[in-house]
């Protein structure tokens, strides 16, 4: 029962954060949009 409760709480938290994140698309990084290469990631930065 306790575990079900935690699962539910975390699912609600995830849903709220996701919803807020999707609405606020502007702060998503240029790498996530594929505009720039993340030079650090590939070891060239």
């Amino acid at each position, binding site marked *: 029962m306790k575990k079900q409760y935690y699962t539910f709480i975390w699912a609600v938290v995830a849903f709220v954060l996701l919803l807020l994140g999707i609405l606020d698309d502007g702060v998503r990084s240029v790498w996530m949009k*594929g505009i720039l290469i993340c030079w650090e990631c590939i070891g060239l930065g």
Partner: protein
Amino acid sequence: MDKKRKLVQFFSTLLYNLNLKGLIDGELYRGGSKGFCVPGLNCYSCPAAVGSCPLGALQSTLGNVKRGVSTYVFGILIAFGVALGRVICGWLCPFGLLQELLYKIPTPKCRSSLKRLRWIKYFILAVLVCLIPLYTAFVNGVGFPAFCKYICPQGTIGGILLMTAQEELRELAGMNFWWKFILLLCFLSVSIWVFRPFCRVICPLGVIYGLFNGIALVHLEVDKGKCTGCGKCSAACPMALKPVTQCNHAECIRCGKCVQSCNERALHFRVKRGDNSRSNALQMMEKRIQSMRGRKE
């Protein structure tokens, strides 16, 4: 089950890297799906990637904290964790698949639990993934992704693929690239003798999903009424766990080898959280009645 898992692993690797054209022309994919984080470790600077790496996205979000925090990355990490936990590591991670394929090379294997080294990945998550991007964001204005820069082997593979496609990039390979290249070779060569060394010792994404293993919707359950304590599941576990007592341990990657090894079918995957203590109690009673009948006869 192992064949099914391998198929899912291959399919998810292909799905994350559907831009096969990028492997030839060296151009990054810029479509809408790039804004979506895939569940496994898969560098968004790999020319074939059609999605973003959740760990890279987390670092870039923390590194841009001064401009505002995007809750999207936190939300998607928690959502993946709550839904699947470390099923993602066992079934949906391309680098996990690569390590497992290398482990298939027939050599003597090291079956150590690596218990003392497990804590390194918690340190990496705290310092390289969270603290350094946050600190550099406050000091320099823009944080830098320390884990991606110094450790991530998946990014190095992306870099090698990009350099293969674009010759001019090869001149840019400096000390940092060669450091990451040697590190990649180390992870891959150790994988021949040790089962998934990167996942067990280094991967911070596994730490995040491991925190949710105990409450994730997809989880393992032990039917104690059926368990005979033969220990076959412990012997089969590649992560050196004891599935009967540690079925929802943060290190369990849900590979299902314990489920497969159990002749009594005492271990099984479940999708919904629920209380099975009543059915366990009933089965134990049935077992006791049967043994009493046996004694009378």
